[in-house]
Every structure is written in structure tokens, then in C-alpha cells.
């Protein structure tokens, strides 16, 4: 199991523990070091104290070569702090030989210090190295059993011997153990107190992330509108993540919408080109055929059957021509400019159906002057959209129409409360003869073509029982 696989719910408390452990270790080290320093100082002071107590009597016994007197002094000094086994006192003569020690069995009188092991040999070398130095000085060597303090024994300012006091390092261990025990206990206590906090914080941190992860896993599998992800939004990292995620969702949505819109409009353009081409190709021979038929009927004698046949052909050809011309939508730019009255006319047209279905029609005509746009196609657009809305609305429903001109744009907005149009159907809503269309299916096609010919755009939104068609048309300044 890799560290990356562990949940933050565990990692955060674990990190807390780790931090506590590291802190505890550092504190232990610092305290131990300090205790060691203090002890060294204490030891040194103790030695200096002993040295000063012995500074008169011990040199005196040495001067009188009173070995027994010196031994009794050393013994008395040994018992100073009661820890007899931990302290070594050795009195050296000027040649580094043991004059007397507090453990004469090991450190026999008159033997040189150096014969008693490497540690004491170093001490002797240190003593002899600094014979001219009359100040007490500490001496320690790594891994030695003892710390030493070297105290020259002066008689009238002349060193006549040296008192070496060795302190067993084992003496320090109980203090170190005490420090370690205290720190470990404190660390344990803090850990126990902080672990639940770590657990809580870990959870708190992970919760939005887990939520986000679940939301992310939904992205791409369905409509981004269906992804409901109420991430906390704020200025901290997780809040920013929430904001970014929402923004991403919106952008994805927008992108999808643009893509599908583009697809649809491309398809509509292709269909339009095809329809126009086919219509032209049909219209030419069709005109010829109608002319020929007309001429033939005018200048020829036919029997009853012939006449009926020609009438039939003519009616069929006329129907083809109407259908084709319906496909060939052309906004007639020559019509007069749009006036508020044109909009109200459309309302009048609707009233019959509205009253029949008892629909409440809200009509906002916010135009108050003529607008430099051809009235005919716009009336057509408005009639198509509003009639569709009235048809789509259930009995007793509501239809909302508004026409507005702002910032060089004419806005037409038609809303009905009919059934929501499905996503699939929305994609091919404006296509002619589409399967789902009611009527001949050319109304929205014509509307679309007209809007595009006027260089505007049309959008449809159908959601939550409301369907809205919004048209924007650029108003061209009269040149």
C-alpha cells in the first residue's frame, strides 16, 4: 500500500502524530542536551567546591607527606554528596603518580595513573600537558566512563599536586531517563488529545474533496445540468475549487450548447441550401410546364376527360410550386419598416385562438417608434412563434410575448407553459418536415430561415414546464 493510497482521514491524524513525535524528539534532545550541560556545569561547580574545601588541607598533607591524612580528606570529600560509588577522587603528585585515591584497591598508591587503562592515561596526559595552568578545568573524552575535573593543588601559588575528580556518566542517566519519560508522557497526552482533532480536521478537509470527486465522476456521463454539486464556495483553496468546479460545469454546458447549436445550424444551413437548390431546379421546369399547360389549354380543343386531366395536372403542379416556394423562404426587404402597429396586428390575429383556449396572454409591446427592419418577415416570425405558443399551451394556460428594442437589437421573446420539449427534439426543432413537428413542420423552419436572413439568431430553451423562444435581430441604421 502506497502512502498515496491512504485516505486523508488517516493521513491527517497520522501527520499530527508524526509532528508530535518529531517535536517530542527535538524537545527531548534539547532538554537532554541542556540537562547534560547543566550537569556538566553542576559537576564542575561541585568539583571546584570540593577543590576549594580541600585547597588548604590537602596540599598541607602532601607537603608533610601525610598519606593517611590525605586519604582521610579524600574519603571525607567523597562522601560529600553521598553518592560514593559515582565519584572518583585521585590526588596525583607532580609526576602524575597517584599520591592517594578514594579507591586505593583499584588505583594503588604510588602507581602512575596511566597504568590504569586508556581513559586514565588520557587524563594523566591532560594533567601533565597543562601543568602550568593553575585553574580548575574540566576534561571529557567521548565514550569515557567519567567526566573529569582537574584541580591543581596549590601551596603558596605553586602546584604541588593535582586533584582529579571523576564523575560517572551513569550518574546522568537517571536524569536523562526522567526527561525522556516526561516528554514521552506529555507527547502521548498531546497525541491522545489531538488525534480526535486530527480525525475531525481530516474529515472536514476530505469531505468536500470526496463530494467533488463524486461530482467529477458524473461529468461526461450525462447532461452537466443534471450534476448538482453544491460545493462550499469561498476564498480558501477548497472554496476556490468549488467555484472553479461550478465554472467548469457552466463552461462545459456552454460548450455543449454551442456545439449542438453549431451542429444544428450547420445542418439547417445544409438543408436550406439543398432545399433552395432543389426548389430552383424544380421551379424552372415547373414554370415551363405550367406555361406549356396553360398555352395548351387556351389554344387547343380537348374533350371533357382531357380537360379534367389537365386540371388535375395543373393543380398538382401548383401544389408543387407552393410547397417549393414555402421551402424557398425569402425575407422581402422591400416591405415597409416595422412599426408598433404591426406587432399589435399580430396580437389581434391571436385573439380568437386565445379566447377559445382561455389562455391568459401577456403582451408587452415596448416599441414606440418605427424600426429599420422589414415588417413582413418579422410579422411572420412573430405570428409563427406566438401561434405555436398558443397551440402548445394547455387550455387555461399562459402565453407571454414581448417585443423590445434595445442597444441596436430587436428582441422578441415568446414564452408558453406547454409541455417541455425534449432534448432530442430540441436538436432538430427547426428542421423542415421533422418527425416530431405538428402541422406541416415548416413554421419553425420558415421562422429560422427568416431570422437568419435578417442576420439574427433564435434560441429556444425548454425547462421546467416553460418553453421560451428568444429572437434577436440586429437593427441596421438607415444609410
Amino acid at each position: 500500500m502506497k502512502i498515496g493510497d491512504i485516505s486523508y482521514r488517516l493521513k491527517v491524524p497520522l501527520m499530527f502524530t508524526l509532528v508530535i513525535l518529531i517535536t517530542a524528539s527535538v524537545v527531548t534532545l534539547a532538554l537532554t542536551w541542556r540537562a547534560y550541560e547543566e550537569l556538566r556545569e553542576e559537576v564542575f561547580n561541585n568539583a571546584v567546591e570540593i577543590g576549594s574545601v580541600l585547597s588548604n588541607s590537602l596540599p598541607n598533607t602532601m607537603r608533610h607527606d601525610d598519606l593517611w591524612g590525605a586519604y582521610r580528606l579524600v574519603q571525607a570529600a567523597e562522601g560529600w554528596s553521598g553518592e560514593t560509588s559515582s565519584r572518583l577522587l585521585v590526588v596525583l603528585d607532580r609526576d602524575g603518580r597517584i599520591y592517594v585515591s578514594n579507591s586505593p584497591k583499584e588505583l594503588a598508591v604510588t602507581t602512575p595513573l596511566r597504568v590504569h587503562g586508556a581513559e586514565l592515561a588520557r587524563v594523566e596526559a591532560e594533567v601533565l600537558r597543562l601543568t602550568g595552568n593553575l585553574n580548575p578545568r574540566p576534561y571529557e573524552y567521548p565514550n569515557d566512563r567519567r567526566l573529569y575535573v582537574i584541580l591543581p593543588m596549590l601551596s603558596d601559588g605553586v602546584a604541588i599536586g593535582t586533584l582529579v575528580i571523576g564523575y560517572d556518566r551513569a550518574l546522568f542517566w537517571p536524569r536523562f531517563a526522567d526527561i525522556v519519560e516526561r516528554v514521552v508522557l506529555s507527547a502521548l497526552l498531546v497525541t491522545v488529545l489531538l488525534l480526535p482533532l486530527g480525525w475531525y480536521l481530516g474529515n472536514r478537509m476530505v469531505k468536500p474533496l470526496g463530494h467533488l470527486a463524486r461530482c467529477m465522476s458524473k461529468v461526461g456521463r450525462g447532461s452537466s445540468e443534471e450534476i448538482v454539486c453544491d460545493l462550499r464556495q469561498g476564498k480558501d483553496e477548497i472554496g476556490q475549487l468549488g467555484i472553479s468546479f461550478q465554472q467548469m460545469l457552466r463552461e462545459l454546458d456552454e460548450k455543449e450548447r454551442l456545439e449542438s447549436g453549431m451542429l444544428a445550424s450547420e445542418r439547417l444551413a445544409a438543408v436550406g441550401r439543398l432545399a433552395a437548390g432543389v426548389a430552383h431546379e424544380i421551379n424552372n421546369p415547373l414554370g415551363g410546364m405550367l406555361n406549356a399547360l396553360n398555352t395548351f389549354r387556351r389554344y387547343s380543343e380537348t374533350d371533357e376527360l382531357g380537360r379534367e386531366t389537365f386540371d388535375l395536372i395543373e393543380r398538382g403542379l401548383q401544389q408543387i410550386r407552393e410547397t417549393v416556394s414555402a421551402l424557398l423562404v425569402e425575407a422581402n426587404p422591400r416591405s415597409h419598416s416595422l412599426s408598433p402597429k404591426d406587432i399589435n396586428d399580430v396580437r389581434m390575429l391571436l385573439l380568437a385562438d386565445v379566447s377559445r383556449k382561455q389562455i391568459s396572454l401577456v403582451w408587452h409591446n415596448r416599441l414606440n417608434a418605427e424600426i429599420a427592419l422589414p415588417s413582413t418577415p418579422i410579422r411572420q416570425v412573430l405570428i409563427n412563434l406566438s401561434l405555436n405558443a398558443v397551440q402548445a399551451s394547455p387550455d387555461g394556460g399562459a402565453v407571454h410575448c414581448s417585443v423590445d428594442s434595445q442597444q441596436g437589437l430587436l428582441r422578441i421573446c415568446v414564452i408558453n407553459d406547454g409541455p417541455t420539449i425534449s432534448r432530442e427534439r430540441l436538436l432538430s426543432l427547426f428542421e423542415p418536415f421533422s418527425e416530431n413537428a405538428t402541422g406541416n413542420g415548416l413554421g419553425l423552419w420558415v421562422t429560422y430561415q427568416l431570422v437568419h436572413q435578417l442576420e439574427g439568431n433564435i434560441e429556444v430553451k425548454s425547462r421546467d414546464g416553460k418553453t421560451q423562444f428568444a429572437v434577436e435581430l440586429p437593427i441596421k441604421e438607415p444609410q
Partner: protein
Amino acid sequence: MTNSRKTVRGFLFLACLLLAGNLLADAAKTYRIGLTAVILTDQTSFLKEWQDYLSDRLQHPVQFVQRQTYQEVTELLLSGDLDAAWTCGYPYVRHRDQLKLLGVPLFNGAPLYRSYLIVPATDTSTREIGDLKRKVFAYSDPDSNSGFLYPQVSLIGEGIDPRHFFSKSFFTWAHRDVVKAVADGVAQGGSVDGYVWETLSRHEPALTAGTRVVSKSPLFGFPPLVVRKDFLPEHFYALRNALLHMSSDSEGRRLLQRLNLDGFSEGEDALFNGVAASVRILDGIE
């Protein structure tokens, strides 16, 4: 009036009596007895008891005076600061012309003792003093027979100059400390009063257990109590009787038991001929 005069007279009489008594008491002899380390002089409570016992028997105050060295005690005795001293046979022999025996203690029934040569208990190889060449040696006191004179003489007897035989020698100024010096390992050999060693082995067996007795000397006269020759006879006899009779009462016997002695004898000068012979040998070498 008469009554009160009588009372006053009575008071005056009483006061005179008391004054006279005090004067008499002042005039009376305080026995000052010097003690040396021939016995275990660090038993302060015992010495107090013994002092009180002797004061009681003599009907005179007795005061024990302790000094660290034999020499100091001897000098105090000779100068008249002390009336008597319990010292070693060696100073007695040296100053025999000025001193006389007051009493000689009886140890194991006889006024005799030996000098012991001791080594640390861990030393199992030493057989005689000659084996201690180049070692550290502890003497008790330069005026001690058992703690200095005898080992010196026995080395001389083996043809060895004691002054250059040991790598180091020192005085502990007390027999007990010789035992301690050897037991602690400060010295690798020591010479000690046999009586002190035996007494210590009863009082402080742990201390003597740290030592091993290598050899015992021939018998010598026990360290005696001595007085100046000019010491007043009545005091001399009073003091001697008090000592001699210690073994005949229970308190005295109890004190003697603490001393690990059987009693005191009058003693003879001839007891110290052995010491005198040693002194001659030592003087001969010097």
C-alpha cells in the same frame, strides 16, 4: 531579733563551710591521665564512663587527655602537664630514667601482647614482611612498639634497611587506622597492635575481615600506664589501687570488658626488656 541573728549566724557558718569545702576541693588533686592510641580512643562514651568510675573510686576528679601522637602525650607527661599516661612500651623504655610503671593491663590473663603484620585479605601470597618489598606500608606511630619499632627491627634483623625497603610508608597515628588503611587498600601491608586488632575483630569484624594477619611477633610487655618518678606516692598508690581493683567490682569488670582487658597488674620493669632490646637494635642502625 535574737532569732534572726541566729539565723544570720547560721547562714554565715554554712557559707564558710561551703567556701572551705570548695577551697579544699580546689586544692585537691585532679588526675590528668593522657591516653594514646594504644587503646581504641574513639570510644568517647566509654571513656566518659571510665573517667566517672575512676573519679568515683578516687574521690577525686579524673580527666582523660587525648593527643594524636604518642610523642605529644609523652612530652605532656614529662613536662608535668599530665600525672599519668597510658602509653606504649617504647616511649617508656626511652624515658625509663624519668618514668615508672603505674600498672600494666592484663590481656588474655597476662601483661603481654604482640605486634601483628597484616596485609589486605585479598593478598594471599605474602608470608613475611620481607615479601612486601617495594610496597606501600602503614605504620601506626613512630613511638609505637608494635606499630613501628617491631617491624623496623624485624626488617633489620633480616639485614634489610627499612628506610629503603618500601616504596612508600606512612603513619596513620592510630592502630585502628592501620587496619583501615590495609583493609581499604591504601597500604599493602601494615603493622598493628595485636590487642587492638583482636579487640577490633570483636567490635568491627567487617573492618578486620578486610585484613589478613600474616605473622605475629613474640610477646612484649603490654603498653603500660606510667607516671613520672616524682609523682607523689599517695597519689601514685591511690591511682594504682583504683586500677588494680577494677577487676574486683562489677562496674570495673564491665568497663574492662569493654576494653577487652582482664584487669591491671603492678607490672615489672623486666616486661619491657624485649622493647629495650629492639630500641638498641634500632639505635644501632641509626
